[in-house]
């Protein structure tokens, strides 16, 4: 893949730009979906867009993107409405309502799709592209539409930022402030639907949910503030979009959607691992550092204290309790102490773990005040 050649190609540049915009909008609005625990609504919205896509094509008689996207938006909105109706008026639960809406709209969509395919065979390739996304199928005119609508959505988000923030974090409080919570939530859902719909041509109906969820989930690992999360999610979305578009354009026969999704998933994985504070790699490093720093003397003193708490000098402390106390494994220190003859390992109750008891030498050592800045005891500590 020669980046220079790629970037030199006007079409590729345009598609990459379009993908970047799609990713930006999906990331930004997806943040709200994820925070409101509505990730799977994105899944429903994208699958439910299928009948609208087919109808848009059938009604307009052309593969022009405008009627198709309009149709997708309308059927997505109807699907969201169905979910609301089902959960509010019957005993059907959230997840079932989402699943019902998703699968039924999609089913009707496949019926319409096959109907459309019978009608005008030539357009079949065009509509199929909406299943998995096909960068190659995106025309410059399409990009203009996607870009325009996407920017409009971002503008709406910027204008109503405070209101959306309030409604997301505490709807009741927002209501008490006089905000029209219902209208705002409906609008937010609509904007999420827009974010989903403009991405369908590139990512496809099946996988669009990932572009709504992954950038936001990744961004969440790096920051606690909404502003930061939305901005970062937008950036991650753009990055995933561009990467996917470029890779897919450079290799023949690679559907764009899957590549974008894998790029986004990689971002999530990386964020989960290395983000500061929340990152799992950070946690592992910190635990390891804590493990190393755990001084033998401290463990000794606490064994002594546990014995005093239980009024039993020969009290056998379960290792699990020590681990809980220190917030990490203590086995290595205990074994070190045993080697020095300061503790002994005993079996206690049959179903419990190892127990440790102070030897007389250990008791004596525990009572000794620790010399400041370590002193002669510390030669063993930093092994």
């Amino acid at each position, binding site marked *: 893949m020669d980046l220079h050649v790629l970037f030199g190609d006007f079409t590729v540049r345009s598609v990459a730009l379009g993908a970047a915009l799609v990713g930006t909008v999906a990331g930004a609005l997806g943040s709200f979906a994820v925070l409101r625990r509505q990730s799977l609504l994105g899944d429903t919205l994208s699958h439910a867009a299928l009948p609208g896509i087919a109808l848009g094509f059938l009604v307009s008689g052309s593969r022009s993107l405008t009627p198709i996207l309009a149709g997708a938006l309308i059927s997505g909105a109807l699907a969201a409405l169905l979910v609301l109706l089902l959960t509010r008026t019957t005993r059907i*639960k959230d997840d079932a309502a989402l699943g019902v809406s998703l699968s039924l709209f999609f089913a009707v969509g496949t019926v319409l799709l096959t109907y459309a395919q019978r009608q005008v065979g030539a357009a079949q390739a065009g509509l199929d592209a909406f299943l998995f996304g096909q960068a190659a199928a995106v025309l410059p005119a399409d990009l203009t539409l996607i870009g325009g609508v996407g920017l409009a959505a971002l503008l709406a988000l910027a204008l109503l930022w405070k209101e959306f923030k309030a409604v997301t974090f505490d709807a009741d409080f927002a209501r008490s402030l006089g905000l029209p919570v219902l209208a705002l939530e409906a609008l937010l859902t609509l904007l999420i639907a827009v974010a989903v719909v403009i991405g369908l041509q590139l990512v496809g109906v099946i996988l669009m949910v990932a572009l709504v969820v992954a950038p936001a989930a990744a961004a969440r690992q790096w920051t606690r503030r909404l502003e930061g999360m939305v901005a970062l999610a937008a950036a991650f979305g753009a990055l995933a979009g561009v990467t996917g578009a470029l890779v897919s354009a450079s290799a023949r026969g690679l559907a764009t959607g899957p590549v974008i999704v894998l790029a986004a998933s990689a971002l999530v994985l990386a964020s989960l691992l290395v983000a500061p504070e929340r990152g799992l790699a950070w946690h592992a490093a910190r635990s390891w550092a804590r493990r190393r720093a755990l001084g033998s003397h401290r463990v000794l003193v606490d064994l002594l204290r546990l014995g005093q708490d239980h009024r039993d000098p020969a009290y056998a402390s379960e290792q699990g*309790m020590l681990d*809980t*106390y220190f917030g*990490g494994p203590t086995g290595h220190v205990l074994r070190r102490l045993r080697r020095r003859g300061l503790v002994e390992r005993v079996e206690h109750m049959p*179903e*419990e773990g190892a127990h440790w008891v102070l030897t007389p030498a250990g008791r004596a050592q525990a009572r000794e005040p620790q010399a400041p800045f370590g002193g002669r005891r510390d030669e063993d500590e930093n092994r």
Partner: protein
Amino acid sequence: MTVVGGVHEPALALHVEDLTASYAHQAVLWDVDLNVPPGVLAAIVGPNGAGKSTLLRCIIGAVRPNAGHVYVHGRPYREQRRRVAYVPQRTSVDWDFPTTALDVVTMGLYGRLGWFRRPRRTEADEALEALAMVGMDAFASRQIAELSGGQQQRVFLARALVQDADLYLMDEPFAGVDATTERAIVDLLKDLRARGKTVVAVHHDLQTVATYFDWLALLNVRVIAQGPVAEVYTAENLRAAYGPRVVLLGATEGAAPVAASVATAGATDRGTEEARTPVA
């Protein structure tokens, strides 16, 4: 510790020792020792987040503790399942489930049936008897969503009664029930005690502890105090468990308070310095 032939502390209905459990590197239970004698109505009481439900779930094996052991009438819980009946919080269940009150009670016998055996006539009869004991036999074929909160709690109790256990573990049995049901449940518990059974209940209401129960454990991550209610239910212990902002009505220092109301505005639910578990 004496474990002779697999038996440990047989004189106690429930013996918990050194029980320690944590969640997200925070201790939820620390070094919990609980020794409940047989034939009492025991309450476990403490602020929210103090580990009360977790304690019950550790006992029945739903949560793996970091340390400690649980013995029921002298043997480990898993050997005594048949002798223990567990009543979870009423709100932990989806009452829209398509089933009847009788069916819910019958579920209490599933343990006795074991894997894959179907409940038969005998089980249905016993379930109906249990429903009658709580005055719900007329509702046997009623769908559970149609029942009120108090009726649902009775059904849950019937499900425990049908197991004819020796130890009853209940999670907030009085929460959200009407006054009539509350009185009825108290009578039921007293009857269980009269028959020599033991009840250990997580109780949510400090006001009624002294009247409903005769044994008390104050829990705030660690056990503050346990024993007969009269000895444990003191201003000092309550302050230790709930924090310095406990408001005790009609009590003088040292005497048992007549009623207690907890004003926790601003105070952390985890209680005072002593009660807070040391975590590195």
